[in-house]
């Protein structure tokens, strides 16, 4: 009898294990791996192959197409064919097939990611897409009678001394955003080489961040012609590379330089003018690898699971709280590391107990294994409340959790019953009752 049961148990364990491993294999990342690469010249595939190889090496499935390919399409039968887009076609005046500016923007609105690189030949189409993402490329400006579309970022102080051209348009940028999640935890030591056009970040757009900014001495102009009017972009207001994370967590990287991603810049050494240090390799390789990891959601993507709340001392989630109850709230947050979900560690996750406005806002403490928890007393206001976690951190996807819970007042019999200060009243009424009892005898039977 014992033996077969044992057998069954083993089988059950085996099945359970199978289920667990299957679940682990299923546990995919937050984003698919199909990326469309649009180029205006297939030579870009070769000249930027190190960047593409690093994407492919991380498991992205790249589909190279010419930007004016007449068979180009982003979706078929209502389903998107790609999860990401690399737009390395700065000069393309219009896309082929069914793709246009609106379909690219719809693609992003559907929560997909994009890397866009422009250069001084950027077309109105590319500029238009960038503008919709909150980034305004330096517009071609009118000089007298002739147009000058050749504006580039020039910096006579912070240029790369390795620049063979000598016109100081090869910028050695080192004003990087302080964010481990966008640029990786390893500091980028060497300056990032940049040659291209600058852009301004729309100040009213809070979703755009400057990742690589120009130095205060930079300006955007045509190096070949004399300046007549003040350049529209100068100083650290110029952004060289910006990122945008939309409210739906779609991520977009916009660079004013296509060369930034090229093999030539990735592999070349760099020496900043006036600096003694010569770096064997420019910071570009690390920069493009780390930022592309961020763009394609291999880093900084959070998920929240197991939102729980209960009264202190209990484990079940109640349907309703009473005012002044003590409650515990916990949520598990994990970050996608590119291969697996790792516990997220931070000390600034906050929960709100919210009805029209937050009544309680408390920072959650973490056990470093992904569980964030806190406890607090329900306010003495009744109504329908919400537990809200609105987590917006630089570079991370936003978390927005809310759970509704009603709060009721005390019931009539839940108030205090014996109040000391009421003892004189109690004593008075009971002594009256006792006196009445005695008096009834005296009144009826006294003779």
């Amino acid at each position, binding site marked *: 009898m014992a033996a077969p049961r044992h057998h069954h148990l083993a089988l059950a364990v085996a099945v359970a294990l199978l289920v667990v491993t299957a679940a682990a294999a299923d546990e995919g990342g937050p984003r698919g791996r199909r990326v469309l690469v649009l180029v205006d010249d*297939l*030579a870009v595939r*070769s*000249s930027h192959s190190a960047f593409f190889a690093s994407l492919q090496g991380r498991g992205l499935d790249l589909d190279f*197409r*010419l930007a004016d390919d007449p068979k180009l399409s982003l979706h078929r039968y209502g389903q998107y064919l790609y999860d990401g887009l690399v737009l390395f076609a700065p000069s393309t005046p219009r896309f082929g097939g069914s793709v246009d500016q609106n379909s690219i923007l719809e693609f992003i609105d559907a929560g997909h990611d994009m890397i866009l690189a422009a250069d001084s030949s950027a077309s109105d189409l590319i500029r238009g897409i960038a503008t919709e993402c909150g980034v305004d490329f330096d517009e071609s400006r009118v000089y007298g009678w002739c147009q000058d579309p050749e504006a580039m970022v*020039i*910096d*006579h*102080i912070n240029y790369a001394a390795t620049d*063979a*051209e000598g016109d*100081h348009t090869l910028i050695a940028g080192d004003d990087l955003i302080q964010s481990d999640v966008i640029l990786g935890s390893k500091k980028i030591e060497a300056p990032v080489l940049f040659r291209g056009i600058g852009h301004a970040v729309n*100040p*009213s757009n*809070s979703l755009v961040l400057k990742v690589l900014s120009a130095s*205060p*001495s930079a*300006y955007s*102009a045509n190096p070949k012609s*004399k*300046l*007549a*009017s*003040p350049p529209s972009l*100068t*100083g650290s207001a110029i952004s060289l590379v910006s990122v945008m994370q939309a409210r739906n967590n779609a991520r977009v990287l916009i660079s004013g330089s296509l060369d930034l991603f*090229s093999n*030539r810049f990735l*592999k*070349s050494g760099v020496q900043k003018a006036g600096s003694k240090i010569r770096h064997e390799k420019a910071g570009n390789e690390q920069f493009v690898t780390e930022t592309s990891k961020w763009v394609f959601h291999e880093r900084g993507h959070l998920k929240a699971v197991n939102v729980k709340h209960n009264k202190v001392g209990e484990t079940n989630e109640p349907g309703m709280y009473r005012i002044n109850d003590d409650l515990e709230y916990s949520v598990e947050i994990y970050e996608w590391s590119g291969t697996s979900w790792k516990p997220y560690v931070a000390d*600034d996750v*906050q929960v709100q*107990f919210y009805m029209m406005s*937050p*009544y*309680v*806002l*408390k920072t959650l403490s973490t056990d470093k294994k992904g569980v964030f928890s806190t406890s607090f007393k329900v*306010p*003495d206001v009744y109504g329908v409340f919400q537990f809200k976690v609105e987590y917006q951190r630089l570079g991370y996807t936003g978390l927005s959790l809310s759970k509704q819970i009603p709060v009721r007042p005390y019931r009539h019999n839940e108030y205090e019953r014996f*109040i*000391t*200060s009421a*003892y004189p*009243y109690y*004593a*008075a009424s*009971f*002594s*009256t009752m*006792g*006196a009445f*009892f*005695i*008096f*009834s005898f005296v009144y*009826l039977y*006294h*003779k």
Partner: protein
Amino acid sequence: MAAAGGLPASATLLLLVIAAVAVAPLASAVRPVSDAHRSAAAELFAASPDGSFGDLETTYEAVRTFQILGVEKDKGLIGKACKFAAEKLASSSSSPAKDLFHAARISGVLKCSVDSGVYDDVATRLKAVIKDTNSLLELYYSVGGLLSIKEQGHNVVLPDADNTFHAIKALSQSDGRWRYDTNSAESSTFAAGIALEALSAVISLADSEVDSSMIAVVKNDIVKLFDTIKSYDDGTFYFDEKHVDAAEYKGPITTSASVVRGVTSFAAVASGKLNIPGEKILGLAKFFLGIGLPGSAKDCFNQIEVFVPLVLSLPSKVFSLTSKDQLKVEVTTVFGSAAPPLRVNLVQVLGSDSKVITTETKELQFDLDNNVHYLDIAPLKIDVGKYSLVFEISLQEQEHETIYATGGTNTEAIFVTGLIKVDKAEIGISDNDAGTVESVQKIDLQKDTSVSLSANHLQKLRLSFQLSTPLGKTFKPHQVFLKLKHDESKVEHLFVVPGSARQFKIDFLGLVEKFYYLSGRYDLELAVGDAAMENSFLRALGHIELDLPEAPEKAPKPPAQAVDPFSKFGPKKEISHIFRSPEKRPPKELSFAFTGLTLLPIVGFLIGLMRLGVNLKNFPSLPAPAAFASLFHAGIGAVLLLYVLFWIKLDLFTTLKYLSFLGVFLVFVGHRALSYLSSTSAKQKTA
């Protein structure tokens, strides 16, 4: 090592380019193959941990690239590759021609020792493949394999060379391109390169002379093929497929490399001249060098295996007058090896606007140790700025002129930089109309200064400074910006200081609206910079206190300034709910004291009853009325007790329920007891 690998290869192409060309006035960034290529190659063809490079084709590409570039690889790796190839060759009957082809070539490059018997087997097998197939690739692999075996010193002869030649030629198209096999309709440029390579191999392998008329036809095909070449604006030429099929598309580099390989090898074996325009060869060379550092392993191989002849290049295009830089020119082959003895002359110097500065011919000195030609730029008497230099190359030895051409001049754009003298810097405020200067301060632009000025909207800000080049001329930099930044709102105003005006004035009267009527402190910053200026600077000058009129109602609002992204992401301040405080209660002692006081009346009542001498003589003596009286009082007691219970624990509904029962009972017994009492008292009264 690099030169050893590179020169024979270059020589083959040079045969092709009978009108030899020195590849010099290339796109600015073209530089010969360098150590950067070597390290890139080592990185790209990184061996996997077990020491192999992957499949046979990749292995061949790796070892061939290393051979050409002279990258040393350790013996173990070579042994592994040799063994890998030998295994394939040994099992010749079962391996496809492609594997045998690559394996034979690996052995050739690495000089592996392979048994001659093995090669006999391989040759037999490949010959069999040639007979059976009509696919271009199969033909290419088998013929190529045979050639590789032959080159390793093994005696191989293709018996029916003419037939094979015809079989390959049969696949050619009228526009010079080739089909992959007889069944396919699509022709391909890539295939053309392969076919040409195969044809040249056939010619080398043939036991007798191949029909020279056929060779002439193929030459004609090559010329046609070069008519399909594509070009970029900057004179770069490349081959690409006409029909881009994304799946089989090989990219311009692979396609161009295939064609160039095929054409060069064909030219090497076929006698006679190929009629290809020189600029197309130049353009192809530009194309391959213009790629810069190749990324994928395949592109690296393609860039290295084809080759281009000579490069004139400047190690640096920026020359500083301050450090008395010498003008250095390198003339090398593309692989960075030295060119034959030659003379380089600087014939012309052009200014930025194509104005001729000097036409005096100067010969550059040759430095044998560093292999550069040099010239001091100081005697040229050129000032800072951008110039175009025109060079001429002439070979010293006559016989080289059949190989290296000196034709054409090479133009290189350079920058001459120097320290710009900045002096006579003054800043001040002047009144609008009179122009009388109220306050002028001399400032030193070598370091940050902190002048403090104040002005109202009727005054002008004056700034003047003088820039002069090392040769004493006035210098007009590209960037001269004066920036005024409002301290409070961070609004910036930028003024371009025109290079011509010796004195720069800002008239605040016309700028009031542009300044958004913002009075207060403005920081002043001056940026001066130019590509030719070594001491470009950005200086804080100090500040100016502006007193502008009040803004009228419809004045434009200053634009919004970007907020610090970090500020909006930080954690919010914690909020904790303030609970209603419980009502204040008197101290317990007071409550107890008053409880005692409220109990006093009942005590007084009891004492009073005692004093009165209360008796219960009227209590019924008969058993039945006594029972009813007792029940009546017990009922009253129960009701009172119920009140106590109601206070302690019962709720209203339970209490009322009990009370209703007790009430009915009390009415009944009360009626009986009281009616008895009233009847007895009535009796007493009547009695």
